[in-house]
């Protein structure tokens, strides 16, 4: 059986990949993709903790949480893409460095 720590490392690796994507890319859609990766890293953790963690396995909390996160990630993506389209219509760019009207 694959031990819990391997899953946790995989999740941490995925989270770091997403983090890098969200921080290094300047394109709003690419940043959104990084954010989705990070959410899915949390999902791996949840399911791994459900299967190998300290709680009883009949308690489906980890799975239920993961399913809800998938749903919320979709809602987030929908809102985010709609905002990105709105920005693109207004400014003809989705490069976050070029969004500089607000600064103090």
């Amino acid at each position: 059986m694959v031990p819990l720590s391997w899953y946790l490392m995989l999740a941490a690796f995925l989270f770091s990949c997403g983090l890098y994507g969200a921080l290094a890319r300047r394109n709003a859609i690419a940043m959104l993709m990084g954010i989705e990766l990070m959410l899915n890293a949390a999902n791996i953790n949840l399911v791994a903790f459900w299967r190998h963690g300290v709680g009883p396995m009949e308690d489906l909390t980890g799975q239920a949480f993961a399913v809800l996160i998938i749903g919320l990630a979709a809602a987030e993506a929908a809102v985010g893409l709609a905002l990105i389209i709105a920005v693109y219509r207004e400014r003809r760019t989705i490069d976050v460095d070029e969004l500089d009207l607000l600064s103090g």
Partner: protein
Amino acid sequence: MDTALLFDNAVVLLPELVLAVGVMVLMMVDIGRRGQNGSQLLAGLSVAILLLGIGASVMIWGRAPVEYLDGAISDGFALSVRLVILIAGVLGVLLSRNWFPAIERQGGAFYSLHLLAVIGMMLMGTATNLIVLFIALEIFSLALYILSGFYRENARSIEAAMKYFLLGAFASTFFVYGCALLYGAGGSSKFTQIHETLATGGGNPSLVLPGIALLLVGFGFKVSLVPFHMWTPDVYQGAPTPVTAFMSVGTKAAAFAGFFRLMMTALPSFHDQWAMPLAILAVLTMTVGNLTALRQSSVKRMLAYSGIAHAGNILIALVAGTAAASSAAAFYLFAYAFMNIGAFTVTIALERQYGNENDVEQSRLAGAAERFPVLAAAMAIFMLSLSGIPPLAGFFGKFLVFKAAVEAGWAWLVVIGVLNSAVSAYYYLRIVVAMYFQQPEQAGDEKEQPFVPASRSSVFVVVVSVLAVVVIGLQPGLWADLLRGLGQ
């Protein structure tokens, strides 16, 4: 569980349910209306729904707390936070009513999202389960992302929405990763169960501290604590001012409520480990917030940094981590709701005078007392209250929080808090001085502009806020008894 009991106990979520049904009714009315008619009806309807929500909270006030489906509880603390959020919601809807050009067309969407944000915020205060906590956070966050971009004619508004979204979604991934680690540590998503497992030596305590650190990023972002505050001034400035007013109060109340409940019911046994980092964050937040607020030229950005500083003050209560501290925080948020929304309302009224630019420069306030005596007087009261000058509401908020912190042995933190209040008085009073004792620079053309009367609903909001700030200040004991903390 018994079906009948499930329905009976649903009464603990009555305010949320009332609002949820209200949102559906609102959407139905919206798709039934023709063209641009009836946006005033929608506004009236949403105010009525929110008032029904307040009625529902008052109805279940004082009931013995029942935990519903292992996910939500309706204790005194939850009810207090609900009240703050519902009041902020009503005032926010009233302010939005005549503000937007877009609201004639898209009023249904706007008010539905507004009510959804209120629902999410209220759930945040009742959540006793990581899953409910996360869903509540997302409900109000998603609604607020859209609301802050609602002023489509203004390029800054949509840019603010995009920034808020990207950073907010980024922060919520940390939050959810932290939730996953806490679930791994305690083997359950229920706060009390996590506490039980960890306190009896079970579980996986090594995961707790990384979990707290990640959750702190998520919460810190929502309440704008200092290393995570970069979005606040931009979003507050770019978002439509009525939305900013509602958001500044509602988000803080909701996120702090969730944060308090999580830390104090799931992780009280780790208080020694998390109190010191939070205390350092509180010091950073207050100091950076106040010092940066000194340098702002825009009123909205100044209020944003002042909001950051206030978040630092409330964090002191969490560091103390006692029941008295949580009720002090509820009182603080209650007072903050009125004074902050009041200040933003006056800003809205001044925006109308100076040509609807979705912001006011502080330099234009010079001599405002002469032109708008009532607005200036109201603004002065809100500024004095925000800076914590007795006997106004803001003073007692700070006083109760500091008192609870001293009792819990955090005197050094309180000293820093008091010093920071002194710094903050400078930039609040600067506005008062500008309005009353300075002459406008180009007196000629300023005076020629005709006076634009403020809308009736914003006059109402200002009057209510002034009355509340004064009454809470004169009778603090009454309200402090009414608003409950955790475990009281």
